[in-house]
């Protein structure tokens, strides 16, 4: 369903902030002294400073779950690993780490970064990535172009249905957690656009060198 974007007036925004500050003070009532002092300092600075600018890009949701800023989305997954899975996963990731993996992810063209962290005595995987737009539409491309890489990367996650399975999207979404806070420096720049601008920048410098 389409989400309704509501535009709030200045006074509504300041009432919003007042309410949030009030709630914070209540929650910090039994915080350690160092936190209380810091909170009051920050509130003072917030109130005396210039009003916050509109964000550079709309903040929204990335498909079903996760946050999006402009064109960049975040995906955070925590999922249990099959017995012995951590050992296999680590060994496979060891091969990917460095140029082989970089080349492969470069080819995907929508991934800003990604990390695999094995948690809790090798029982869980934390997978985080920042990527462009939605992952839903691209899963099918992965399933026909690089299915084995994905099945090796995630095959040790308990219950992984396989990237070719029609159930894979629901499976991923069921383990996804939306970040509470997430910052993006260049929300309007996709990976492809960043590479294009890099090339244009280089070409412009060359051009200027030649005519100067």
């Amino acid at each position, binding site marked *: 369903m389409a989400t309704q974007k509501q535009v709030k007036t200045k006074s509504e925004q300041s009432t919003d902030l007042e309410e949030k500050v009030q709630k914070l003070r209540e929650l910090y009532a039994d915080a350690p002294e160092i936190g209380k002092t810091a909170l009051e300092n920050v509130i003072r600075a917030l109130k005396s400073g210039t009003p916050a600018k509109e964000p550079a890009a709309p903040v929204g949701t990335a498909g079903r779950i996760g946050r999006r800023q402009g064109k960049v989305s975040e995906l955070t997954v925590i999922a249990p690993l099959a017995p012995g899975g951590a050992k296999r996963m680590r060994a496979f990731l060891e091969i990917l780490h460095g140029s082989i993996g970089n080349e492969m992810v470069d080819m995907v063209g929508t991934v800003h970064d990604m990390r695999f962290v094995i948690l809790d005595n090798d029982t869980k995987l934390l997978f985080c990535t920042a990527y462009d*737009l939605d992952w839903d539409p691209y899963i099918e491309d992965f399933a026909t172009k690089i299915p084995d890489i994905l099945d090796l990367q995630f095959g040790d996650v308990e219950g992984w249905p396989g990237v070719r399975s029609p159930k894979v999207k629901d499976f991923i979404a069921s383990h996804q957690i939306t970040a509470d806070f997430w910052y993006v420096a260049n929300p309007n720049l996709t990976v*492809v656009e960043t590479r294009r601008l890099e090339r244009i920048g280089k070409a412009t410098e060359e051009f200027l060198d030649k005519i100067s």
Partner: protein
Amino acid sequence: MSSEDRVGEDSRNCIAVDLHDIQATILRHRPEPYFGTHVFLHINDAHGGREFLRRLAPHIGSAADWWKAGDAWIAVAISYPGLVALGVPGDSLRSFPEAFRAGMAARAEELHDYGANDPKNWERPFGSGQIHVQVSIVSPTEDKWHRTMETARQQYEGFSGVTVLLIQDFGAQPGSLNSLGYKDSIGQPAIEGSGVEPLPGQGRPIKAGEFILSYPGEAGVPLAMPQPDTLGRNGTYVGLRKYQSRVGAFNRFLRENGQNDEERELLAAKLVGRWRSGAPLTLAPAKDDAALGEDPHRNNDFTYANDPQGKQVPLGCHMRRMNPRDTKMPVLTDVNIHRLIRRSTTYGAPYDANTISELDDEGARGIYFLFISAKAMSTLEFLQQDWINDGTFMNLGSERDPLVGLQEERNTFTIPKEPVRRRIHDIETFNVLRGGEYLFMPSLSALKWLAGLNAEAAERPARHG
């Protein structure tokens, strides 16, 4: 286009889909010339709706011998509210994909149908939930069209179970050109196991499961299918989009950016990737070639191997966006899984190059597109977001499809050339969306199943949405 001469012994032996159960429209190409009518109906009550389908079912064309041109046929597709109105059981309703259940209007955000294309600007009854059934009559001759239309009419006229909401004739265009004056519907995907050799340039046949439910798709497994199997098997989905062509804006654009007829026609070809006749710029870079355009064995027989920069066929033109073929793209993409079968049906006054006023933009002419695929909703949403209303996938920043893109202020169209590219500023939206629906196109046996749903199943509460 006749496909008969493409049927060799080998392909006959390789028929792997149940042609007798699949609706004709899925495989049968639009004839040329063509005549036809779309009829949109509302089901008044479950019993009446089922009775209507029971009457209509024997007249629906199957895909058997689909390569034989010459006959007219009737096709039928049903919207989600239509399935609800027919009394399809709740479990079965819930087995349909979310986007289909929500309907095209509710998916405006996913389809980037904003501004002029926003469903709130659509013509009634589109997007209102009132359209339950679409019946289409397609014919190669005027005479057969009238006769087949009469057959269809007899099934609904004077019958209280259904109400006609809208009747739209299409086709009968001079030279079968579309509303902007181009030959269209060239370059359809070849479907594996459908019994016909691919045309030169059509590429390798794509797995049948991409287009027809219950067969393996490109990933090797069938897509999720509505239940029970009888309902889903051999069915598919249709994304219907009604566009109104802003012929005045299109002609003004050509005049403002071309000094003479020759320049204007080249620009028109650069927007599409093909000349008016259908001749592709790859094979006819300098001027139109009518004989090439009308020859199905030659007009699609090319790759982009020698045109990586788009100096012949611009990277951002309509044809290259909708089927990038071997274009090297900056995002990992399998070009074989974003294809749609397109059945384009032009309505209204024929294209006129001298039409330039803003008043002409509001005229009732344009195209009803039927996009057919076993995952039509997700493919259409992908295309609208990434390949039509963005340019990132072709390294074109935020440029949009010049024909069906929704242009924003200060949008551009880039034509690569030596020594530097030409960039045309302030391109306008040439085709405005006036309506759309997601529909399910059942197999012939599923139609009988729907028609025969027993009263008990119909009484069970079926929740909408």
